């Protein structure tokens, strides 16, 4: 890992902790951004952590760009020794894989896809060495995922699967981005899953849809009354495959204000995870579903 600093015009400093994705890079980025927040540097207006990088927006009339750069570098060395452990929550997200709405959309944009004659799921299964789309779906939801970034549009989470590199699933983004994606599509690009919080453009492959809103500017959804955005970096997610009947049932519950996502408080420690991935994931599952 080699940290690279670059100015994004006169108002941003962009910091790439590593070129490639890893939880080590995520935790280092998180530690530095936490240190920046704790330092309450005058002139810093936005602190945005990402998967393996982060960005600081500042007012150059208040703090000189070079002075802020030096300050960030000093915080980087202090952050090296920070604990890679967080108190967080694990949340079950229901997913209706291979649903009719994303299917309709992906057929409409076939000319922008690597495989114009197939579907996104069949393509993803094939290039990741699975016999069938069903096998790929199982690999997608068997292990928990880690929210390593929130962004793109309103409250959209990027998720990284909690497995070793050899078991990671990878797919390219669409050749040309779509101009439409159904709201709450579960997507995939690079090694990341995402949930499209709102309807709109998108370049990730589409695998399914969740009935559970994750962004509500009107704050009418019962679990979004405190804040309109559901996810934050560090959240852990377990995808739960559901069928049409359950999808409809949850939609009705959300509408009625009676749906509450299943979740549990957990600790995540990167060192313990790296030492025993399957054991750590088993414990996460026990926290969510009971031993």
């Amino acid at each position, binding site marked *: 890992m080699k940290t690279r600093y670059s100015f994004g015009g*006169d108002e941003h400093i*962009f910091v790439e902790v590593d070129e490639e994705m890893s939880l080590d890079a995520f935790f280092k980025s998180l530690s530095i951004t936490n240190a920046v927040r704790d330092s309450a540097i005058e002139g810093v207006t*936005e602190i945005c952590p*990402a998967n393996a990088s982060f960005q600081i927006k500042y007012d150059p009339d208040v703090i000189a760009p070079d002075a802020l750069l030096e300050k960030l570098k000093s915080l980087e060395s202090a952050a090296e020794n920070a604990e890679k452990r967080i108190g967080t929550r694990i949340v079950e997200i229901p997913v209706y894989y291979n649903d009719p709405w994303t299917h309709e959309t992906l057929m409409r944009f076939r000319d922008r896809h690597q495989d114009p004659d197939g579907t996104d799921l069949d393509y993803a299964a094939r290039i990741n060495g699975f016999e069938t789309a069903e096998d790929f779906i199982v690999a997608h939801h068997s292990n928990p995922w880690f929210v390593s970034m929130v962004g793109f549009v309103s409250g959209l989470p990027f998720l990284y699967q909690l497995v070793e*590199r050899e078991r990671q699933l990878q797919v390219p*983004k669409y050749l*040309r981005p779509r101009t439409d994606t159904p709201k709450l599509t579960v997507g995939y690009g690079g090694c990341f899953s995402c949930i499209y919080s709102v309807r709109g453009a998108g370049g990730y492959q589409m695998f399914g849809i969740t009935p559970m809103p994750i962004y509500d*500017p009107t704050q009418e959804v019962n679990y979004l009354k405190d804040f309109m*955005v559901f996810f934050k970096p560090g959240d852990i997610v377990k995808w739960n495959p559901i069928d049409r009947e359950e999808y409809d049932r949850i939609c009705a519950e959300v509408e009625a204000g009676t749906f509450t996502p299943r979740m549990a408080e957990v600790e995540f420690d990167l060192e313990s995870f790296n030492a025993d991935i399957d054991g750590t994931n088993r414990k996460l599952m026990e926290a969510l579903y009971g031993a």
Partner: protein
Amino acid sequence: MALKVLKPGLLTTVQDLGRPGYFHLGIPMGGAMDRMALRAANLLVGNDEGAAALEAVFVGPELEFTADGTIAVTGGEIPVKIDGEEQPCWTALAVKAGQKLSFGFLTSGARIYIAISGGIDTPPHLGSRSTYAIGALGGVEGRAVAAGDELPVGTSEKAVAPGTSVPEEMRRKPGTPTELRVLPGLYWHRITDAAQNGFFEDEWKVAPEADRMGYRFKGGRPLEFIDREQPFGAGSDPSNIVDSCYPYGSIQVPGGTEPIVLHRDAVSGGGYFMIGTVISADMDLIGQLQPHMPVRFVPVDMDGALAARAERRTAMDRIRKELAGE
């Protein structure tokens, strides 16, 4: 006092100076594309510079006033009509209850700002009235204004003499070609020297895909990448990176072909590499570019960017002084 929307124009939204502080959640700052024009419009009607006004793209709306007040229209140059009678833009105009505001065709620029004494008083959302349509925040129920809307207007605190105007030489207009100054950086090292030079040598044109989120440009040569094995998690295209944050003004080039400059309603991050960032001093100018207009990107260093920023501040101060009668 209210503003009745008779015709909405093409895309007219309530905008102020935006909602900083939520970019880490994918909610952009938003607000007026051309900040200086918004500030000037507000000063012309006696409002705080950051009061909410209407931003209209290409085509002006038709509005009716329910009470007497003062309005001003800034940004692009456009014939302003009150009850059909032509009035100057960039000027404080007295209006009476029942009068109607309409517009001729835009003669330069792309966006106009319509300020009214008291400011538009739709409910703020996360500290701002700016409309962010993608996230359904701010404005009128999170959307652009529509025929039949009645926009509430606040109480005016300060009167400005009708006829007060911003002198022509203090207004900023895009040139031909418009020069947009860029601080190279971010993933600039990913393209070859020839591609780096070519990007600044070529003349680009604004593509039809140009909106509050970003402006796309066409017509220059495709960028050639330096060969590498793609980092884990990035995706296989050489223009892919592990999804990162995007600065406002950053220039991403999906597939190396058509640069996109992110603007006020920027997506906060994504998986395309960026070659640099348009400096803060030139962001307003982008908001006044129409499709097909020629553009050149001009490299500057940080000192150049800061000098340009100071120059813009001085220009705004001149307008403030002029309108304060100093």
